[in-house]
C-alpha cells in the first residue's frame, strides 16, 4: 500500500499517515522499573553475562554519548561473539564507524536485528549490502524514546556507559576521565529496560548530584576504560571556511532576520556541522547588533551555543548530548545549561516536548524532493549514510524548518523528483536555502506572503531543480533492489519508508 508520503510499504506494517496523526492516539506506557534490590557491582563481564543469563534472541540496548570513542558496545559484542549467541537484537541509539565488531557479528548472524537512530561506517555498508538477516529499524531520537516506553521496543538488558558511578549506583556523565556531558539518550532505556547495567571506569564514594538514579540500576560493571576521550567529544567547533557554505549561512541568517524570527525570547536549534555553526555565528551577530536575548537553544550543544549562553544571549540551553569539551564543562558548571532526555526532547507523546517550543530549526539534507520530503538516511544510490536523529522530531515541532544545503554535492543534485528515502515528511519542511536560490514550501503561504516584496532570490523548488539539471544534466534513475532490509520509522511508530538492499545492477 501507499503511505501518507506516497511510499509503497508492505500491508503488514503500520503505514505513516501524516505527521500529526499521533494526536488521535493516547500515550502508551509500560510499567517503569520498580527495583527492590540493591545495585550489585561486577568487574567481570563474563560473570555479569552469566548473572543476567544473557542468551540468544535477546535485545541489548546502548547509547551513543561516547560517540566514536565508545568501547562499551565493542566490549559487550566481544562477549556475544565468544558465547556465539545468535539472533541477537541490538538497539544502540546510534552506530559510529568505530563499532567495527558489530560488522562481524552481523555477517556471522550473531546480530540479526537492529534498532538505531543513525548509522554510518562499516556497519551501514554491510546492512546496505543486505548482510543483516533480520531488519534494520531507523528511529528518530524522540521516536526511540516512544518505542521503548510503549513496549514497541522491549529491552532485555540496557548497557549504559556512564563516566562516573557512585557506590550506591547513581551515575553522572560529566565527571571522570571519560566525561561526555549529558546522558539524554539513555533515560528511556534506564527507566524501562528489564535489566539495567551501568558500565563505568570511575567509581567514587558519593555523587552530590546525579543524572542516573540508582533506583533503576540493577548492576554496575567496572572496566578499565569505557571510551577514548579523543573520539568522545569529537564534534566540530570550526565554522566553515567554504565560501559556498558561508554564503548559504549568511543568506539563512538574513532570511531569519527578515522574517522577524530573531526576536526577544526566540528559540532555535541547528545541526553541529560547519555550515550550521556559521549560521549560529551570523545569528549571534544579529542578536548582538539588535540587543536580542533569546529564550533557549537546544539539541546537541556545541561551544558556539555555550559562548552565547555565557554572553547572556540565551537564557538557557537544553542539551541532550554534548558535542565538544566546552559543552561538557559548561554543563558541569552552568545551571542554565540543562540536560534533557530524548523523550523530553522529541517524544511526540511527551507533554510539551522541547522540540515543540522551537521557533526555528536549521537542518541539513542529503536529498530533498519536489514535495519537500527530506532524506538524511541514505545517499542517492540507497547506501545507508546517516539517519534522522532528531531531524524529523524538530522539523515537526519547530514553527519554521529550514534546510540548508548546496544545490550540488560532489556533482550530485540534492533536489530530486522523489527522494531515495523519506526521513522527514515535506509537510514539516518549510524553506530550502541553497547557494543559487531559496525555495519556500507552497504550504507556507504565510512565509511566501512575507517574502513577496523581499530581494531574496525566491524560486519554486521545481525551478531550482531545472536549474540544477542545467548544470549537472539529469541523473540516471536508480532502481532499488526489491529486498527490504529495514524500515524508516516515523516518530509516532508508523513506517514512513522502506530501506532496500543496494541494487548493484542499477549502477
Amino acid at each position, binding site marked *: 500500500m501507499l503511505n501518507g508520503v506516497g511510499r509503497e510499504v508492505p500491508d503488514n506494517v503500520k503505514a505513516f499517515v501524516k505527521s500529526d496523526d499521533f494526536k488521535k492516539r493516547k500515550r502508551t506506557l509500560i510499567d517503569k522499573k520498580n527495583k527492590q534490590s540493591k545495585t550489585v557491582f561486577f568487574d567481570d563481564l563474563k560473570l555479569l553475562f552469566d548473572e543476567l543469563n544473557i542468551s540468544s534472541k535477546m535485545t541489548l540496548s546502548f547509547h551513543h554519548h561516547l560517540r566514536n570513542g565508545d568501547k562499551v558496545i565493542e566490549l559487550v559484542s566481544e562477549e556475544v561473539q565468544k558465547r556465539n549467541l545468535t539472533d541477537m537484537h541490538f538497539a544502540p541509539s546510534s552506530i559510529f564507524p568505530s563499532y567495527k565488531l558489530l560488522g562481524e557479528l552481523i555477517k556471522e548472524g550473531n546480530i540479526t536485528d537492529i534498532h538505531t537512530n543513525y548509522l554510518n561506517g562499516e556497519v551501514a555498508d554491510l546492512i546496505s549490502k543486505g548482510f543483516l538477516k533480520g531488519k534494520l529499524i531507523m528511529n528518530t531520537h524522540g521516536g526511540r524514546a516512544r518505542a521503548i516506553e510503549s513496549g514497541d521496543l522491549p529491552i532485555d538488558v540496557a548497557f549504559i556507559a556512564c563516566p562516573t558511578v557512585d557506590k550506591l549506583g547513581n551515575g553522572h556523565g560529566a565527571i571522570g576521565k571519560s566525561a561526555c556531558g549529558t546522558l539524554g539518550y539513555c533515560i528511556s532505556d534506564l527507566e524501562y529496560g528489564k535489566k539495567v547495567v551501568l558500565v563505568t571506569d570511575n567509581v567514587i564514594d558519593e555523587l552530590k548530584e546525579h543524572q542516573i538514579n540508582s533506583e533503576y540500576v540493577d548492576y554496575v560493571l567496572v572496566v578499565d576504560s569505557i571510551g577514548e576521550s579523543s573520539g568522545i567529544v569529537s564534534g566540530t567547533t570550526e565554522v566553515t571556511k567554504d*565560501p559556498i557554505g558561508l554564503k548559504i549561512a549568511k543568506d539563512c541568517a538574513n532570511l531569519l532576520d527578515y522574517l522577524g524570527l530573531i526576536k526577544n525570547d526566540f528559540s532555535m536549534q541547528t545541526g553541529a556541522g560547519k555550515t550550521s555553526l556559521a549560521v549560529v555565528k551570523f545569528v549571534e551577530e544579529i542578536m548582538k547588533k539588535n540587543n536580542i536575548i533569546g529564550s533557549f537553544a537546544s539539541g546537541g550543544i556545541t561551544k558556539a551555543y555555550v559562548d552565547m549562553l555565557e554572553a547572556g544571549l540565551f537564557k538557557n540551553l537544553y542539551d541532550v548530548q554534548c558535542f565538544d569539551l566546552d559543552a561538557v564543562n559548561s554543563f558541569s558548571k552552568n545551571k542554565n545549561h540543562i540536560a534533557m532526555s530524548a523523550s523530553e526532547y522529541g517524544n511526540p507523546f511527551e507533554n510539551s516536548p522541547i522540540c515543540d517550543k522551537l521557533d526555528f530549526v536549521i537542518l541539513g539534507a542529503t536529498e530533498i524532493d519536489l514535495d519537500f520530503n527530506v532524506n538524511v538516511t541514505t545517499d542517492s544510490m540507497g547506501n545507508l549514510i546517516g539517519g534522522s536523529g532528531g531531524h524529523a522530531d524538530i522539523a515537526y515541532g519547530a514553527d519554521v524548518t529550514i534546510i540548508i544545503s548546496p544545490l550540488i554535492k560532489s556533482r550530485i543534485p540534492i533536489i530530486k523528483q522523489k527522494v531515495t528515502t523519506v526521513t522527514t515528511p515535506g509537510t514539516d519542511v518549510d524553506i530550502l536555502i541553497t547557494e543559487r536560490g531559496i525555495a519556500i514550501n507552497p504550504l507556507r503561504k504565510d512565509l511566501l506572503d512575507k517574502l513577496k516584496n523581499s530581494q531574496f532570490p525566491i524560486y519554486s523548488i521545481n525551478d531550482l531543480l531545472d536549474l540544477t539539471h542545467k548544470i549537472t544534466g539529469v541523473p540516471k534513475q536508480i532502481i532499488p533492489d526489491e529486498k527490504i532490509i529495514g524500515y524508516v520509522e516515523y516518530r509516532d511508530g508508523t513506517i514512513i519508508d522502506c530501506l532496500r538492499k543496494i541494487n548493484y545492477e542499477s549502477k
Partner: protein
Amino acid sequence: MFRSLLFIPGNNPSMLQNADVFLADAVIIDLEDAISIKEKDNARNLVHNYLTTSSVLPKQIVLRINSIDTVWYKKDLDLLKTNKINYLLIPKADSKTIIEVNEYLDTLFSNNNLDEIKLIALVETARGITEIDKFAENKRLCAILLGAEDLTNDLEIKRSETNQEIFYARSKVIFACATNKLISIDTPFTNINDIVGLEKDSAFSKSLGMKARACIHPNQLEIVNRIYSPSNEDINWALEVFKAHQANPNVGAFQLKGKMIDKPIIERAKKIIEKAKLFNLM
C-alpha cells in the same frame, strides 16, 4: 562598471562551477599567477570547457592571460573564440605590452570574425606606473587594475599594513583613469582573514578616488561591494539634486538646502544614480 572583481583560479573546477554564485560584479578567471607552469595547458582546457558548456556563467567574465613574453599568451587568447569573455586582463601592462596585445587582437579579430573586446591593464611594474599616462589613452582600455604585490617586488620594498608604499601608484592609477574615463580598480587586500583591515583600507582607497577593488576570496565581496557602492545618504542626496534640477531645468545654478548646485554637481548626482540603479541599490 564594477565595484568588485573576484579572482578564480582557472584550474579549480569546483570554484569555476560556482563562479556565478558570489556577489562579484565580475569574475577574473586566472590563467597566470595562480596556475603553475605544468598546469597551464590543463587550466586553459578546463576554462575552455567551462565557458563552452556551462549554463550558469557569471554576468561579466574577465580573463587574465599570461604575459606577452610567455609561450602561453597567444594560446590563452584563443579562448576569445568562445565568445564568452567580456574583458581581457593584461598582466605587466606598459606601453609596449598594450601595443603588442592590440596588434595581435586586431589580427585575431579580423581573421576569426570575433566581436570587439575591452581590455583591463594590470599595472604591476615600475615601468607600467611610469608609462601609465601613455597607454591609458588606448581605445580598447576600459579600466586599470593596480597590482601592488608585483609592483612592490619590482621596487624591492615590503608591503605594509598602512599601504603607504603604494600611495603614489594608487594616485597614478586614479589620475590616469579619471583623465581617460576609465575605471580605477584597486589592488587586492591580501590578508583574507582581516575583515576590519579590508574595510578600513577600502574606505581609504575609495576616498582617494578608486572606483572598484579586486578580491581574492569571496568573503571579501560583501564589504568591497558596500564600500564602493554609493551610500544610502549619497543616493538620497543625488535624488534630491536630480529632482531639484528637473524642477529648474533652465537654471545654470541654484540652491538646495543652502548649498549651491551647478553642472559638475548635477553630473556627480547623475553618476551616483546610474551606479545605484546598475547595482540594484534603489
